[in-house]
């Protein structure tokens, strides 16, 4: 394509907002009742963050990897790619994120998660709780039916936001930093798509990405986990 400067964001939008929002309803119907165990596991992870266990540091990345895999196949490949051919290119990237989380967290044990005091801890918990419990309700607030709610492990936005939250709670260690790149990029891409669609929700992934970057950049104690009182 030439004359890139003459294109507006709307020129790249291949689908209508209605078609886009209905994707989540279709994916939820297709995968039902997966949402129930997903929410239960999500709640269990939240509990583990406040009462850390050694085995939990292996289990949480496994659950996170499963969520990225499920989104890549169950949403991107099976639904989103049908209306947006660009989504096809995200599928292997999402699978790569899942494998990387699994390798670094579950296999190598290089990720530890705990709700700690401080800016990163507050942001991490806030992002995770939002993605798990509040983001599915955004559909209702926006006037769409609840069956179209975006749930972790099925929809990419809450999965990316939850990942950013959990990574904000993990001590920075060599080799784990690349994990944040895809969720940040996805949040930016999603914000762009939503803004182009004229959806007011565009600020949500954008804010999540900004908060995650802030949490990541904020100075804090590095290395071992503390069992200090929870941040939230």
């Amino acid at each position, binding site marked *: 394509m030439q004359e890139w400067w003459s294109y507006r964001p709307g020129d790249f939008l291949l689908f*209508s907002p209605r078609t886009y929002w209905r994707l989540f309803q279709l994916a939820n119907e297709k995968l039902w009742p997966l949402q129930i165990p997903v929410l239960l596991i999500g709640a269990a992870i939240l509990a583990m963050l406040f009462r850390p266990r050694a085995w939990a540091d292996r289990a949480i990345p496994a659950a996170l990897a499963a969520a990225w895999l499920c989104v890549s196949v169950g949403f991107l490949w099976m639904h989103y790619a049908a209306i947006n051919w660009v989504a096809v290119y995200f599928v292997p990237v999402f699978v790569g994120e899942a494998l990387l989380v699994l390798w670094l967290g579950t296999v190598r044990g290089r990720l530890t998660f705990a709700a700690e005091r401080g800016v990163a801890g507050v942001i991490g918990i806030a992002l995770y709780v939002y993605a798990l419990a509040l983001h599915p309700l955004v559909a209702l607030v926006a006037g769409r039916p609840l069956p179209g709610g975006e749930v972790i492990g099925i929809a990419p936005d809450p999965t990316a936001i939850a990942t950013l939250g959990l990574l904000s709670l993990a001590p920075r260690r060599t080799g784990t930093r690349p994990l944040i790149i895809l969720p940040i990029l996805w949040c930016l891409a999603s914000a762009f798509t939503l803004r182009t669609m004229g959806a007011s929700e565009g600020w949500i992934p954008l804010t999540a990405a900004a908060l995650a970057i802030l949490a990541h950049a904020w100075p804090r104690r590095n290395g071992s986990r503390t069992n200090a009182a929870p941040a939230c």
Partner: protein
Amino acid sequence: MRNRRIDEPMSIYRRAILKGGLAAIAVAGLPGFAPRAETTRPERRVIPSSGVSIPVVGLGTWITFNVGTDPVLLDESVAVMAAFFEAGGTVIDSSPMYGSSQDTVGHGLAKLGYPPVFAADKVWTPAGGDGREQIGASRRKWGVRRFDLMQVHNLVDWREHLETLFDMKAAGEIGHIGITTSHGRRHELLERIMREYPLDFVQLTYNILDREPEERLLPLARDRGIAVMVNRPFRQKALIRRFQGVRLPGWADNIGAFSWAQFILKFILSHPAVTVAIPATTRIDHVRENIAAAADPLPDEAMRRRMVAHIREF
């Protein structure tokens, strides 16, 4: 021009139509679809290079038909197609770039028993793919024997694709050849290609606000005997939104325009170089409204100037 499903004899399609395939869809309860006893056939215009005549209002599929596998939205698209065919439309335009739009068209044609369609599609291989292969894949998605019109999408790899298309046309694998642009882009190159190649069609953006083609491209199309397909007649709804809540001028009655959509379409269709406009919609009432705009009277030159002057006030 009349296409039909791959590998099946023509009689099946005639039978399907005669048996009231469209009415069957209506009875099946597609949303909002109700057959009407009397319909005014839309005006037809001749493709200069072939003498084939087509209705002046077609159906675009950009965004509106990209509905994936959503059963509800697929049914709505079928209903739109049913209303379109019932009103006398035949020209449907799509592209491999439009997501699942080709699949939706194919789904609709199959559901409707393959009514007569002037199948217009595009070749679009931004990564340098095989054009002939892509055209084959598109044909299978539509479920048609051949395309009546195959266009080079947005001038992408136009030299290579035109060469392929001329070969295919010579072999009878496609009916007409065209080249497209939109949003008023690359008109200089388009003009050069129109002068140098024996095109059957050119597709471009033209409407009451985007009138640059009037200066060179539309006169050139007439001189060269190239049919003109107009995309983005409403600037993807933006023109309609612009006039929302604004009353039509009283004199719009004189040209038979009873809505802003018809006002805008009649302006486009009244240009003598325009062969067909392809508005896209998801609504049955809009399909009918669009096709009704093709009925006489169309504005004459004096009226066209008045229309332009009027919309400048907004």
